[in-house]
Structure formats: C-alpha cells, structure tokens
C-alpha cells in the first residue's frame, strides 16, 4: 500500500474543489440553521439554481459569462423569496419538508426529457467555463511542492474558491457581530420574545434565508466552473445532508466551523476511499466482500453513521457550544 500517495490525496482533498464547495454550502446553512434556527433542507436547490443559471445562460443561450453569474445570483435570491413567503411563518419541520420538496422539484425539472433543450436532461450542460478560464492568471504548468500540487486550471478555481470562502466568512463574521446578527440569534433562541420587542421576525428570517442561500449558491458556481460540466443528480438531497454533516462536524453557529468541518470531512472521505481501494487492489480485503465500485457506497454509509453519531453524542461538533444549537422545533 502506497501510504505517501494516500496521505497526499488526503492533503489535496482538504483544500480541493469538494472542500471549497461544501464549505460554501455549509457557510450558507450556518446562517440559516446555526444563527437563525431555520431548518433549510433544500440547500442543494440553491447550488443547482446558481450552477444551472450560469450553465444555461452560457451554454444554451450563448450569452457572456458574467451575465451567467448575475443570473445565477438573481435565481438564488428569487428561490429564497419563493421558499420563504409560504413557509417562514410555519414551524421548523414544515419548513424542512417544503424546502426539501422544492429542491427535488428543481432537480426533477432540470433532468426531465421535456426541458432537455434548455437544461440538457440527465446529461446536464458542458462548455460554459471557457469565459472563466480565459481569465486565468497562472501560466500553463504544474504547481507542485513535492508530489502535492495542482495544474494551472485547478489552481485558478481553488484560488477563486478559497477567496470566496474567506470573503463569505468575513461577511458572516461582520454580520453576526452587528445588531442585525444579534436579532437573528435572538430569533433562534426565542422568536416570541423578539416579536414582543417589536421586531419583524418574518422579515429578518427572510433576509437570513436570502443571504444564506446566496452564500450557498457560490458553492454551486465553484462546483460548475471547477468541473466545467454539471449533471442534475449532483444536486440531490444527499448534497444537502452532506453539507449538514459538514456544518455539524465543525460546529453550528461558529464562523469558521463550516470551513474546518469541510476540510476534515473530505479528508476522512478521501482516506477511507483510498485506503479501501488500495487494500482491495493489494488483496488485503477480498473483492467478494467489497469491490472498488462499492467503496463509494461504503462512503455514503459512513456519512450516514457520522451524522447520527455526531447528532447523538456531540451535536455542537468540534467548535460549537451546545447551548447555541437549535435542537428543538419551534
């Protein structure tokens, strides 16, 4: 077994594209769930709207790249408004069901044969990232320290991605230290008390839903540009629950926690993947027990278990404070 390769893969996973995407998705969820106590189970819908907004604008209609970004962002805001208007007055579990339903609606519509001309059916969309990579300042080549490193295209998307993560964390930090952020936390703790102080709770929740949704949608852009192709099934419910696992692992209601959570999460997944794959190739594990294609399924089982164990034994995650987690439905 090639332990150097395994460790380098794990190191690359900790700063790689998936870590960036899930960090951004979880930062958005942190605003919803961590700070406001809104149980948004449709975060993958925000990622999908952003990714498809960009891809469809560029690949289907041949419009410029920047317009695609704008349309994706506007789409995320509209989705937040559409979701929020009927559901923000409802109890948390209703909000959860409605948001998960709407993210599934989005996925079913974009993958349908009926709208194949626009969204590309189950194949999704390709050929929309050229505008982004034409801005790449890195000259062609590999940027390595020893064996660890990335080629110039990956360097560019990771630079932009981590810059967005940093910017999002800064925005969340400043927002949550402001009086506005304190109202959000108060809503999480006791909505009725906030209402009795004359605050418009509905409006605050809506603002939180929009901001968290837009922050999450940045993850959709980064994913679409990094892969240079999107398929509808990436944006299934599992993506949302991965983001929840990332958030809870790091610790909800902490600014940097989603970032650390995402890094640790993808290191764990990379390690299990690589160790299992290499053990199977080397014959340590019989391929009648588990073969290379089943390693992916094992990874999902692991995530499910991780989510259960965290929620039961340590809902505050690594950095959180148990008293600050919205664990009861209101």
């Amino acid at each position, binding site marked *: 077994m090639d332990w150097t390769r395994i460790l380098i893969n794990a190191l690359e996973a900790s700063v790689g594209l998936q870590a960036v995407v899930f960090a951004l998705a979880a930062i958005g969820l942190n605003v919803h769930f961590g700070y406001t106590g809104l*149980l948004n189970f449709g975060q993958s819908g925000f990622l999908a709207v952003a990714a498809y907004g960009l891809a469809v604008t560029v690949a289907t209609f041949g419009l410029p790249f920047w317009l695609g970004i704008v349309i994706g962002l506007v789409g995320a805001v509209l989705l937040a408004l559409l979701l929020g*208007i*009927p*559901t923000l*007055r*409802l*109890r*948390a*579990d*209703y909000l*959860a*069901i*409605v948001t*998960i*339903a*709407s993210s*599934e*609606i989005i996925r*079913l*519509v974009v993958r*349908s*044969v*009926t709208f*194949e001309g626009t969204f590309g*059916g*189950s*194949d999704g969309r390709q050929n929309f990232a050229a505008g982004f990579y034409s801005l790449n300042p890195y000259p062609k080549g590999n940027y390595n320290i020893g064996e660890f490193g990335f080629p110039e295209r990956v360097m560019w998307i990771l630079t932009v991605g981590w810059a967005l993560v940093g910017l999002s964390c800064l925005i969340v930090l400043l927002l949550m230290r402001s009086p506005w952020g304190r109202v959000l936390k108060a809503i999480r703790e006791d909505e*009725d008390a906030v209402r009795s102080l004359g605050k418009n709770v509905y409006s605050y929740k809506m603002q939180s839903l929009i901001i968290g949704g837009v922050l999450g949608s940045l993850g959709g852009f980064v994913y679409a540009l990094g892969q240079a192709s999107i398929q509808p099934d990436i944006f299934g419910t*599992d993506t949302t*629950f991965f983001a*929840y*696992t990332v958030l*809870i692992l790091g610790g909800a209601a902490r600014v940097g926690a989603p970032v650390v959570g995402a890094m640790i999460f993808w290191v764990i997944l990379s390690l299990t993947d690589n160790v299992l794959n290499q053990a199977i190739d080397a014959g340590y594990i*019989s391929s*009648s*027990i*588990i073969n290379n294609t*089943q390693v992916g*399924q*094992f990874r*999902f*089982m692991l*995530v*499910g*278990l*991780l*989510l*259960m*164990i965290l*929620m*039961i*034994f340590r*809902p505050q995650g690594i950095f959180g404070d148990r008293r600050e987690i*919205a*664990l*009861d*439905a209101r």
Partner: protein
Amino acid sequence: MLRPTGASIGDQPELVSTTTGGVLVRKRVALFLAVLVSAGVCLFGVGAGPAQAAGESIFGFLFQLKGNVRTSYPSVVVTAKGPGGFTGKAVSDKNGRWTIEVPRPGTFTVSIDTKTLPKGVTLTDPSKQTLKLPVLEGQDKPVLFPLGKSTRTIESKWSQALQLTAEGLRFGLIIALAAVGLSLIFGTTGLTNFAHGELVTLGAVSTWWISTGVLPLLPDFGGLQFFPAAALALLLCAAMGWVNDVVLWRPLRRRGTGLIAAMIVSIGLSIFLRYFYLYLFTGSNRSYPDYQSQRGLNFLGVDLAPKDYWSMAVAVVVLGGVIYALVRTRTGKATRAVADNPALAAASGIDVDRVIRVVWVAGATLAGLAGILLGLAQGVNFQMGFQILLLIFAAVTLGGLGTAYGALVGSIVVGLFVSVSTLWIPVELKNVGALGILIVILLVRPQGILGRAQRVG
C-alpha cells in the same frame, strides 16, 4: 401561544418516571450503532443475484390484425435518430419485432422505411411515417406504426381518465399504508421520521430476497412462494420497528433529545440504510420471481392485472382494520390519547412508552406492506422508499400532520393527483405536480384538510 400537542419527544422523560443515567443511554445508542455496523460487516460478500442491464431501448411490432388473425411483417427497416448524432437501425424479425438500443434517455426521431413494407401494406396514417418521442431513463419505449386501414376508434380522454383514476387509487392506497404509520409516529412522539422510506424499501427488498432464496449468510434455499415470503418480510419489518424504538428512539427520548436533533438522526439513519441496501441489492430494478408479468384484466373499462386488484383489496382491508383499531380497541384509544396530550394520557394511567412501541411496530409493518405492494406495482429497487418519501410527507401534510384519518384522505388525494395529472403533464414530471400541491396547501391551509385550525408555525 398554542404549541402543537406532543411537540417534543423530550417531553417523555417526566412521563415515564425514570432517572436513567446518561451512561446507560449512551450504551444503548452505541449498541444500536454497533449493531448497524456489524450488520453491515456480517452481510458483506453476499451478492444479490445477477444484475440486469439498465439501458434504454425503443421497440415495436409490425403487424396487422384481420379478425383474430395476426399477420407479422419481417425485414422492415426502422431507423432512429437522437441526441449527440446517434443513429440506430433495426430490421424486424419473423414476429415483426424490431428493437433499437439507445445509448441514453432523450428525444428520438423514429421513422419507418415504407419501401421495405410488403406490397399492398401501407401505414394507417401516411403522415405518421416519422415519429418524435421521448425516451425516459431505463425505459423500453414501445412505438407503434399502425398498418392497414383504421379499424378502431382512438381511446377517448374519458376512458384514459378512468384508467388513470384506477391506477391513482392503487398508488394512493399504497402511500396511505406508509403515511398512516408516519403520521402516528409523528403524532405520538413528534418525530418527523426521514427513515420511514427505508422501512418501505425493507418490506420490498426482503420479500424479494426471501422469495428468490438468495439470503444473506444462508445457503441458497431456492426461495419461497410469494405469500409466505411476504409474511416473513412483514415480520422482519415489525422487528425492525421494534428495534428502532427500543434501541434508538426510546433512549433518545429519555435523554431529552430535541425534535430537530432527532430529525437529523433519522436522516443519518436513512442515508446509512439506503446505501446499505444499495450495497446488498445493487442498483438494478427487479421484480418478484412469481410476478414477473401478469396479463391485464378488463373490468368496467379499466385494464389492470389481477395482482393490482387484490393488492388494492389487501390495502383497503388493512387500512379498515387500522381505523377500527384506532376507534374501537383499548390500545387504539390510548394511541389517540397520547397523540392528543401525552402528559394527560400518562396521568390517566396510560403506559405512554408501551403505546409508542406499539405504534412503531405497527407503523413499520404497515410501511413494509406498502413496500411489498409497491414492489408488485413497479418493481423493487434500493431507493424505492426514499423516492416516495416526499409523496408520503405530502400526503401526511395534506391531511393534517399527526392525524391518522387525515393521512388516509391525503394519500388518496396525492395518489389520484399524481396519476390523473399525467393526462396533461409529462409522466416524468408527475411528482413535481404533487410536491407543488404540497407547497400550495401549506400556503392556504397549513393545518391540512382534516387538521384542527391550530397554529403550526
């Protein structure tokens, strides 16, 4: 402000007069997780039979009926064009059958070469020489080129509606079986159980396993007939419900785990079980060996297979039994009392924990039955339960969360809507319509059809 009854499963500790230490609870939960993992480890290495190809194809038969005599036309050329420059060509065999394998779903243009038809044979409608049609994922799309003079009238919209209503009723009854359990569990414990779909899948998957005889850890015993297999699978589901409550949810209730925390735990369980099923069962869609296909039976203008009629009958009888039990029996009354107000129920001498355990066992059994019937209707796959979970939620919400009768009514409405709406919207988008209805209902009547007008927000 009104809070919904039974809103927190954290309410339970006071009711059951317990001072259970956190350590014991921790052990119980850890035990459950260990059981899950070791179940995973023990069952490693058990393949589940041959996988079937899950590709798409377009096929059809070229023939003409004269009275009862069927004349087939071999060596007729049919071509298909599709996305990505795909072209396929097929020649009909001696039964008139032609098949074109297509690489992926999409819209295809299929045309028949009329010059290769025998002399004197023409298309019924010469303008229909080329047809444009969608092929869905995993679909074997039948295409008909009618030959000879038209002899029958086209099926009217009304008879289509009748057929779809019958199919919708069948689907609605299946959803109802699962929804009643989900609704009762929500009513008595406040838990929104995202892992309920996996109980549905368990019913279907275990019936398939027992009836094919390819059982984990045991030698291949050739398989049982469908009915004993289904009965054993139901027992397994009941046991699963019991294990769910005793090993996982009751300890969590005693710890005072919040509702949202419990919901997220159920999501973790759902992900774990779904991919565990995928690991054991593989991704293909299978049917029960005894019910590969069954000839349709025409009854009052509705064309359904006999298995559809009796599965509807089974569902109606079982649902009737559930309603009778809820209204008439002691345990049923106790269940409704606990759903209404757990503290008051406990004060009047009802053993709340026992009621919840009964609800879990019954709910899991009903969900398993729903899975078995759904497997009859559409085949068995590892995520069939998860695919209908949102429809079950829609049904429960539509009827009013936590009310068992509401779940019944809501399920029938959702089933009918999903099926009949395909008159106007494409089949692949039928679930979108139902989920859209869920959102609209929450806008105008959040307490559902039969729910009491209480604040749910």
